């Protein structure tokens, strides 16, 4: 089949997949009862969070362990606004995004001096500092008690006909879909390509005349904004925000979701979020050992599909090709040339 025809076919399949997925998500409240629906809502929210983290981790190659700072900041902003000032949903979400962007713009110049493991540590440190500040500012944030009793917003035009869980589900779905669409636009733009180039070789990109620092600063701010939006939705979903939402454990979970699903792929983090959360809720119904099982899954991911679930078909093709090559080589010589082994291992 000619290349062009194949890619057109592929595009058509992709479109079909999107249509089916959106239809399934729209129909979900009709089929699912309250509890699975709330799990699905959580998956959407954490998926958005992991996707925002993926902008840094997967697209730009900046391993962050402090992304929960934005998740928590967004949560506290909408929490405080809804609780003390009764700010309506739209402005509250916009202010939450703004808070995430501003937080990233303030901390960016500090963390972006580093990369690799130092970046990991510095983002973690700053997040822990923020955690401490929130914890100490008891008068405003409620300290470790957090802010309970935040009203969960509802879509007004559906208010009569749907129960609150389904109503909020639709609200979250709409916001997450819009956010993801805008993210797709960003990563396909020339800016998005510049991110990939920085991940692959920052020096070359710099040599070509790109302001790499500015590009990284911009994507850090963007990821902060998306992360804060996810955090705001999570706070509305739970009706509560506490320092736990800022905890590095949340950041670590986002990191793992991204890696399990496939860092650097567009949908990988969403798939990873779904897998991790479904496993947690499923496994915890029949055993208390879900932490053990989650750990084993991380290990299995690394060993069996190191580039994530989303890239599994690609990986299978590779493994099959290697097996076939070995079968071909086998009869020629009992032992292979050392050079060949080196090439295959790397």
């Amino acid at each position, binding site marked *: 089949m000619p290349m062009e025809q194949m890619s057109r076919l592929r595009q058509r399949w992709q479109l079909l997949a999107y249509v089916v997925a959106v239809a399934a998500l729209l129909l979900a409240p009709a089929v699912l009862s309250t509890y699975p629906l709330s799990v699905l809502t959580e998956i959407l929210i954490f998926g958005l969070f992991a996707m925002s983290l993926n902008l840094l*981790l997967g697209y730009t190659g900046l*391993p962050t362990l402090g992304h929960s700072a934005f998740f928590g900041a967004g949560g506290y902003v909408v929490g405080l606004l809804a609780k003390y000032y009764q700010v309506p949903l739209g402005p509250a979400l916009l202010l939450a995004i703004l808070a995430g962007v501003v937080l990233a713009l303030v901390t960016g110049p*500090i963390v972006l*001096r*580093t*990369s*690799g*493991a*130092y*970046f*990991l*540590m*510095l983002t*973690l*440190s*700053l997040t*822990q*500092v923020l*955690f*401490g500040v929130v*914890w*100490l500012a008891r008068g405003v944030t409620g300290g470790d008690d957090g802010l309970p009793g935040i009203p969960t917003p509802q879509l007004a035009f559906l208010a009569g006909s749907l129960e609150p869980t389904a109503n909020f589900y639709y609200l979250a779905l709409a916001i997450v879909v819009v956010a993801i669409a805008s993210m797709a636009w960003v990563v396909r733009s020339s800016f998005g390509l510049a991110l990939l180039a920085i991940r692959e070789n920052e020096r070359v990109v710099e040599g070509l005349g790109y302001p790499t620092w500015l590009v990284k600063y911009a994507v850090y701010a963007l990821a902060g904004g998306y992360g804060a939006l996810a955090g705001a939705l999570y706070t509305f979903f739970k009706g509560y925000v506490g320092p736990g939402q800022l905890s*590095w454990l949340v950041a*670590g979970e986002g*990191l*793992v979701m991204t*890696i*399990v699903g496939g*860092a650097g792929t567009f949908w990988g983090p969403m798939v990873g979020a779904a897998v991790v959360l479904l496993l947690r809720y499923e496994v915890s119904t029949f055993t208390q*050992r879900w*932490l*053990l099982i*989650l*750990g*084993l*899954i*991380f*290990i299995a*991911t*690394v*060993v069996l599909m*190191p580039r994530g679930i989303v890239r599994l078909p690609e990986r299978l093709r590779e493994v099959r090709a290697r097996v076939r090559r070995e079968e071909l080589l086998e009869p020629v010589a009992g032992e292979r040339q050392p050079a060949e082994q080196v090439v295959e291992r790397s």
Partner: protein
Amino acid sequence: MPLNTASVVIGLSYASLLFLVAVGLSVVFGLMRFVNLATGSLYLIGGYLAWTIAGELGSFWLALLGGALGALAVGVVIERGFLERLHRNELLQVCLTLGVAYVVQDVTRWIWGGDPLRLRPPESLRGSILLLGSIVPTYRVALIVAGVVLAGLVWYLLERTKWGAYVRAGVDDLEMLECLGINGRRVFAIVFALGALLCGLGGALGTPVTGVAPGADIQILLMALIVVVLGGLGSVSGAVVASVVVGLVDSMVRTYWPEASFFAVWVLAALVLAVRPQGLLGRVTA
């Protein structure tokens, strides 16, 4: 602010434990850019094994040995089993070692339960002694001595032996070392194993003062990470200095401003890294 001898002793004894956990982490990172988030788990294993052995055999010293060797065994399994294939892939290293940390935490909770366990120090180190006009626990002082002795040993091993020279050369330039015909991976494996041994020993030594419980692994891991980045990745002297600084700051803050105790060291870390991204005595940039 008057310096309180007791809190200095507590700070320095904590610094001893931190050093034991951090030094392996630091050198392993320096050699292979390897981030080991299962470090705290080795500490946990050392602590739990020591508690069980002390209970069964009644000997504190055998408990120390058992804790250290147990952690060594687990460390070797991790290294041989997985790490070889994850060379230079930070993301997968993070994912794998976090997975190991989860597994170890849950398995140890399964075996030893969720309550904190405390080991009694040996007869000769119980009670307290008078030091510079203050009464301090004998065991804490012994910990400081043990920390100094072990730090000296590590220093000797790395700075005064041929094998230590390989390690230092590997930290500076691994490819060059391998070009000279030295097997970098074997050096890495040995360093990793020794680091695991020290972690387990730290866990066993720390059990009488901090107790051992689920969550202790995460706590010591975070503190050790601070020590490692503060001191500078790959630097042993940096690990010593940073352990002492972090240990003292932690115990001072605990004494004078207890509410801030759990994040004061993070402020310190953020400040130092913001000014010196490579750490206090770091030679390696990540």
